């Protein structure tokens, strides 16, 4: 079902077009994701799992989880949650692993040239930033202020990262964009770049990062190389899955996926939702669901208290949505999509309490159970990694200037440890400054010192208080890990 009226958003949809799904003609809007168009048409099952032939829908909606692979125009394994819909597209439910299109004409062209290295062209740039979210855009702005030429690469066609779906206002002080909605912060961050030597390279996937800081890019269907003097990885995080019976059933979505569907494409995820997770994301998305006219059956959390801000919790309680602490989801049921969810209480040891089971009639279960940093590029490059639960899992070891164990490679935002957009922006600034310093560009050293001190102060403020405790602890441990490394290498 599509949203037509929303208290905050106006949906500027593209041209209405016809496309084909398993032989049926359906209508969608040009440029929206294939998965969103299908969802709006009531299609939740996108593929069958390879081994057990179980129905699968999407889960993350941002091109991370591979749950939405379908066959499009005869080509298998297309990530439909991030592939824009085009007129006349032939979309098919993918069963099995997908087959190579056999009828490929032998338009192979000339054979590849001699087996020699270094035959492809390589473009160069002083600073490449991977990810055009809050961290990446802030890094570009601050590196730019130091006179560094930058390209910001993002696989999405729209910059802003996850800000583009955050309709809520941010907290904090004005320098952290408080009282502004996430959707508008992205625009401001992009506007900040207008007079700086920063270029956006959108719709571009970084396939790999190689030892001499060469990035392998897929852009507009072509493979290109870019050699960077320094690299900042601002690749964000991926949504966590929760293991319970039938957790792969279509209708079990990540909280970010629900936001994307609802706030970017104006498609509601279902009629009645169970929200799992009472941290800030769970509470905020529950409220956004209510704003979109969707019924929220309950917000549950296994922890014995609400993890998010009380002001968010109060808003949804006022709307009559129960928040059940010390509760978990046991299973969901339904033939090929969620029709109900069974929840229960958990005891002090997180174990289900027998006899406390309740079945909720819901068609969607939204998981807001944390994020995991996207560190693949850092690890591929050989950056030392460490497991840091406070920061969301495996993270590249980094110092207070966001430098990793590999010279010239920096990391910022959720990729360096899961926090919030506000801290991501400040980390981005610090990484931008550090990259400029490392590149040895000519700049005003006093200005750099001043900006760095200012940013470090902001981070401290943002991480102060009980809600910043985990990040504070994680970053402290990280710093000592980095210092140990430095001591070792001396």
């Amino acid at each position, binding site marked *: 079902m599509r949203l037509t009226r929303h208290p905050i958003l106006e949906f500027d949809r593209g041209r209405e077009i016809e496309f084909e799904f398993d032989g049926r003609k359906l209508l969608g809007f040009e440029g929206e994701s294939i998965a969103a168009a299908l969802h709006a048409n009531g299609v939740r099952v996108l593929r069958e799992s390879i081994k057990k032939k179980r129905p699968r829908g999407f889960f993350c909606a941002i091109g991370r989880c591979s749950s939405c692979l379908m066959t499009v125009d005869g080509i298998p394994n297309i990530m439909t949650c991030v592939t824009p819909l085009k007129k006349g597209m032939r979309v098919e439910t993918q069963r099995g692993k997908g087959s190579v299109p056999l009828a490929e004409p032998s338009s192979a062209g000339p054979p590849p040239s001699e087996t020699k290295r270094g035959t492809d062209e390589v473009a160069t740039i002083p600073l490449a930033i991977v990810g055009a979210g809050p961290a990446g855009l802030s890094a570009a702005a601050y590196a730019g202020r130091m006179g560094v030429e930058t390209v910001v690469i993002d696989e999405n066609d729209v910059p802003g990262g996850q800000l583009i779906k955050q309709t809520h206002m941010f907290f904090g002080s004005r320098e952290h964009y408080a009282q502004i909605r996430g959707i508008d912060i992205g625009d401001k961050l992009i506007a900040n770049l207008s007079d700086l030597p920063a270029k956006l390279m959108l719709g571009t996937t970084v396939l*790999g990062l190689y030892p001499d800081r060469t990035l*392998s890019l897929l852009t507009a269907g072509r493979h290109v190389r870019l050699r960077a003097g320094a690299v900042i990885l601002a690749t964000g995080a991926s949504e966590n899955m929760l293991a319970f019976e039938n957790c792969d059933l279509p209708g079990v979505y990540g909280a970010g996926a629900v936001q994307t569907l609802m706030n970017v494409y104006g498609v509601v995820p279902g009629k009645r939702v169970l929200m799992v997770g009472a941290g800030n994301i769970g509470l905020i998305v529950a409220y956004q669901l209510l704003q979109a006219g969707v019924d929220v059956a309950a917000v549950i959390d296994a922890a014995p208290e609400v993890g998010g801000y009380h002001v968010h919790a109060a808003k949804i309680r006022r709307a009559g949505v129960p928040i059940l602490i010390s509760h978990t989801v046991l299973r969901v049921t339904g033939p090929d999509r969620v029709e109900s969810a069974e929840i229960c209480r958990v005891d002090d040891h997180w174990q289900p309490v027998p006899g406390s089971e309740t079945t909720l009639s819901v068609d969607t279960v939204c998981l807001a159970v944390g994020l995991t940093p996207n560190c693949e590029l850092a690890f591929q490059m050989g950056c030392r990694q460490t497991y840091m639960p406070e920061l969301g899992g495996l993270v590249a070891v980094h110092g207070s200037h966001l430098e990793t164990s590999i010279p010239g490679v920096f990391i910022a935002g959720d990729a360096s440890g899961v926090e919030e957009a506000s801290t991501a922006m400040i980390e981005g600034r610090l990484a931008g400054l550090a990259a400029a310093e490392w590149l040895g560009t000519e700049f005003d050293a006093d200005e750099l010192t001043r900006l760095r001190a200012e940013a470090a102060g902001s981070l401290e403020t943002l991480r102060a208080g009980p809600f910043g405790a985990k990040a504070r602890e994680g970053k402290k441990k990280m710093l000592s890990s980095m210092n140990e490394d430095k001591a070792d290498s001396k």
Partner: protein
Amino acid sequence: MRTNADCVIIGGGVIGAAVAYNLAKGGMTNCVLLESKYLSSGATGRCGGGIRQQWSTEPNAQLAMDSVRIFKTLEEELDTDIEFLQGGYLVLAYTDEDVEQFHKNFELQRRLGLDVEILQPEEIATRVVRQLNTDGVRMATYCPSDASANPFLTTKAYADAAVKLGVEIELFTPVTRILREGNRIVGVETERGIINTPRVVNAAGSHSVLLARTVGVEIPITPYRREILVTEPLERFLDPMIISFSFGIYFRQVKHGSVIGGFAYPDEKPGFNEESSVDFLTMMSHKLSFLMPALKHVKVVRQWAGLYDVTPDAQPIIGETDGVDGLFQASGFSGHGFMIAPKASSLLAQLILGQKPDLDIDRLNVRRFSEGDIDLDHSVV
């Protein structure tokens, strides 16, 4: 960790694991296998898993043919699945040199009794594989009994079977040096202590050179990086391994459905470099999508590199070392250790157990290089 053993095998690749198994099977069960990381962490786990019998020298061809015979019943013998499949090998010729060499190979291989045949380019589509672009192909040889298997599963199968027979396997146990007294081996020193033993099998791939040096022995093995990549899985469409020496490529579809393949840069510098390069990714994509245009839509999911332990004649070094009693070499497999592991390991075990090997492997002894009479194998990818 045992402190006394009848034999210590250094290297937890397919060779080391298979030697351990064959020794234990032959009665020498008090063996210890030492591996610096984990099983298959070296060249074995990085290889393409092909099992080819089409070689240009008799020892390589014979070892490979005998190995296929063993592979055919290995799953039964070791009681586990190793994804063995006789999907054949299609070898493509593009140049005059190829054509000439292929005819020679064909003669040799037929003489040895291999079911190899010569195909004309137009026969490839009907006989072997439909989706192949044969532009520029002069001829091909095809051997339907050539095969493939999963290197990880094979190594684990050998290792598990060895342990069942009494062998001890110590992982994450780097060897610091081999211990020698006079002209005989007396033990192995590891980071976790010393094992006394009269016999050592040096099966550490490219690192064998460094180990041999700890007892003053030089073996002519040069490490060369070889890169490889794998795609997302697809429904089965390709049974044979497809290779070409002059075009420079090998690829096959593994059981899981992924296409795995690589090629060698002729100008690759020797050394222990195991980094992946973007050059390889690009060139391999070009080559694959030229030979099989339909694959241009398929995503590469991973690339990595491993080391070929190359000898001057591209044939392995197997046997006892002159002047150092009890030091057995089993390395220098030059990129085809996996496919000949079953036979090579069985022959070496026979030698160690004091039996007469059922195939003459004296010509694979390291002394051949000082005698200066070598027979280079041309059929190396």
